[in-house]
């Protein structure tokens, strides 16, 4: 009978507004007790004094690149990177090669995740066949074997009639649709935010309107359908207004943010810095202010990473040719601390809600007891030292992806223990560990 006693931490279970100093006892993979618990001989101890004990973090926007002949990442390496960053659960996007658009492909990834035995991995299936946006993928079959959401991420479902089919079908199977909001006819050849910097560098600009138009259209299409609609990686301040209005009307619309869209602007692209090439692109300080306001007032409810590993040669090329995106799993937590807590936008319980209960609810894994700390529920926990200062070093990532514009940044806050189903998968603070009393 394996037991772990996490002692004296600030236990935050945002889903039920719990925030107290307490001990947590884990027994046989489940949470046995939360409260004041005397040490026993059977339980290994983790000293959580000064730390936050939270439900295991959940990232619903990750690219694991398997299957893919290039192997920029595998399910195993991505799930290991998640653990390093404090994430016990991740959802992987289907833009692999070939794409995840059948039940068999969903099961393939699930099997790889079981073999890896690191973070839990849930699969997001394609909304359309081969992500081509032309006809429906096998949404019902994928849902039956456990796909938790659907998306053509990397590409927008751009055709309005196709979008209508997708929303109806995803709603039928009671899942969530995640839109990559990009009107493609406005972004031909585009590689960074449309503005003075793009003009000066001679790069084709990518207007914020490309995102806003799609969200506006989808929200209208969905009004009579009522599908759970999730706008991925918001970049534009005006998108927040559209989401806010839809939520006020009571529509089941959610939105997600990434650390880079809160901490970097288009200025980072200057000098043709390909590490700052993102899809959607980095915008302006004005956009960041609106995005933060949207987080503060509860319009944006989910913090993601859009973890997108690429081999370095896909970044060490000219800006227009370079790959979009950066890795995120191992740097997201302190970057969100910097962008949201140090900046006074929200507090720890609010931030953790956006990394646990909210994403769990959106993809329906709250029903499995994930995203919360419930006695009798699965013991997925993350112990966070909120004051730990460290330096992000891309070369030390568990992910093979080194594409990180935050390399060398001094940050604060780190997951020091990540526990999945009662097993400590990562323990960065051996001095806090103790044998049974």
């Amino acid at each position: 009978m394996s037991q772990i006693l996490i002692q004296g931490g600030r236990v935050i279970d945002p889903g039920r507004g719990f925030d107290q100093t307490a001990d947590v006892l884990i027994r046989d993979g489940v949470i046995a007790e939360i409260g004041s618990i005397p040490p026993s001989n059977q339980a290994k101890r983790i000293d959580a004094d000064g730390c936050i004990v939270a439900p295991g973090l959940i990232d619903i926007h990750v690219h694991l690149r398997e299957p893919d002949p290039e192997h920029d990442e595998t399910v195993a390496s991505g799930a290991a990177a998640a653990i390093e960053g404090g994430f016990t659960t991740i959802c992987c996007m289907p833009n692999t090669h070939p794409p995840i658009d059948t039940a068999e492909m969903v099961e393939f990834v699930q099997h790889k995740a079981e073999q890896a035995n690191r973070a839990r991995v849930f699969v997001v299936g394609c909304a359309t066949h081969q992500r081509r946006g032309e006809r429906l993928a096998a949404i019902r079959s994928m849902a039956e074997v456990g796909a938790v959401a659907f998306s053509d991420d990397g590409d927008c479902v751009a055709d309005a009639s196709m979008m209508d089919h997708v929303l109806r079908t995803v709603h039928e199977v009671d899942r969530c649709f995640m839109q990559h909001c990009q009107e493609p006819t406005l972004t031909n050849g585009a590689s960074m935010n449309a503005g003075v910097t793009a003009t000066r560098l001679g790069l084709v600009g990518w207007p914020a309107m490309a995102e806003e138009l799609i969200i506006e259209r989808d929200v209208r299409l969905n009004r009579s359908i009522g599908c759970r609609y999730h706008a991925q990686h918001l970049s534009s301040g005006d998108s927040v207004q559209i989401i806010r209005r839809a939520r006020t009307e009571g529509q089941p619309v959610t939105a997600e943010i990434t650390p880079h869209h809160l901490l970097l602007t288009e200025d980072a692209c200057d000098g043709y810095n390909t590490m700052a090439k993102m899809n959607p692109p980095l915008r302006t300080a004005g956009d960041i202010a609106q995005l933060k306001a949207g987080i503060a007032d509860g319009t944006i409810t989910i913090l993601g990473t859009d973890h997108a590993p690429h081999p370095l040669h896909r970044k060490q090329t000219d800006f227009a040719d370079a790959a979009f995106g950066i890795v995120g799993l191992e740097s997201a937590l302190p970057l969100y601390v910097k962008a949201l807590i140090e900046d006074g936008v929200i507090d720890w319980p609010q931030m953790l809600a956006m990394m646990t209960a909210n994403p769990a609810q959106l993809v329906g894994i709250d029903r499995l007891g994930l995203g919360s700390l419930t006695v009798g529920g699965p013991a997925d926990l993350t112990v966070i030292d909120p004051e730990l200062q460290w330096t992000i070093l891309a070369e030390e990532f568990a992910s093979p992806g080194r594409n990180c514009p935050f390399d060398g940044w001094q940050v604060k806050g780190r997951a020091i223990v990540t526990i999945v189903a009662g097993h400590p998968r990562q323990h960065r603070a051996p001095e806090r560990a103790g044998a049974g009393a």
Partner: protein
Amino acid sequence: MPVAATDRRHLLALEGLPQGEILTLLEVATSLREAASGRISPLDRLAGRVIGNLFFEDSTRTRHSFSLAAIRLGADTLDLTGRASSVSKGETLLDTARTIEAMGVDALVIRSREAGVPAMIAEAVECSVINAGDGRHEHPTQGLIDLLTLQQRWGDFTDHRIAIVGDIAASRVARSAIHGLTTLGTDVLLVGPSTLVPRTFEQIAAGPGRVTVGHDLDEILPQVDAIMMLRVQFERHSPGAIADDYRARYGLTQARASRLQPNAPILHPGPVNRGLEIDAEVADDPERSVILDQVANGVAVRMAVLSRCLAQR
């Protein structure tokens, strides 16, 4: 780290190049005009040096102009064009540049389809890198040619105003001209349809000359001391961006040319679409058109640039 604009080993852009540097380059180019013309025997100041022309995008004029400049300075040249080079075999641009550098070239003259390629290569190699046009970004030697041509007509740059007309958005020539001219104190009016001349151009240059965007060519004709017509780069735009009445609104016809100030020169970086952005009679007008002066200045300017960059080694 990106290469600084003031690093004299390279010429990547006119943006950020100090006024004194630009004027010195023009002065050197002027002093090299006779040597550039081929009427005297080649100089030997770059004897034993090898200049590699690395052209990832087709170009005849610029490439030959650089080759002539190298030869007239006594250097050897190595020609690598997109199709002949290993780029088409999937080797990365950086690998290609490093391979050629390893053959012992002293300078790489680079033309690329995309913006930022010469800058990226300059970071990765030891030899000099000269930008011969990168996507929509800059074409600094063409910019210097335009400056030299204007200097020959104007004498000075301050208190002058030029209109650049046409496809500004896709034009590397325009960006280099804007930076060079505004640095020297000339005001630049950009004229064309809003689909090809975005407002953001008004903020790209540091001055002291100012950049203004306008859409009415007829209104500005009498107000400028020179006019530069640009080719419409149909290949760089969605077909819908260029209206049926483009020529009617922005073509430099004889009637329009007659409304220019009598001494205002007409420039065009070539190749010219006769009958589209400029009438044949205007392009060939020996009094007004300085298009052939621009070509003739090309070799001298490129000799000046090669001399400057390689003097640092």
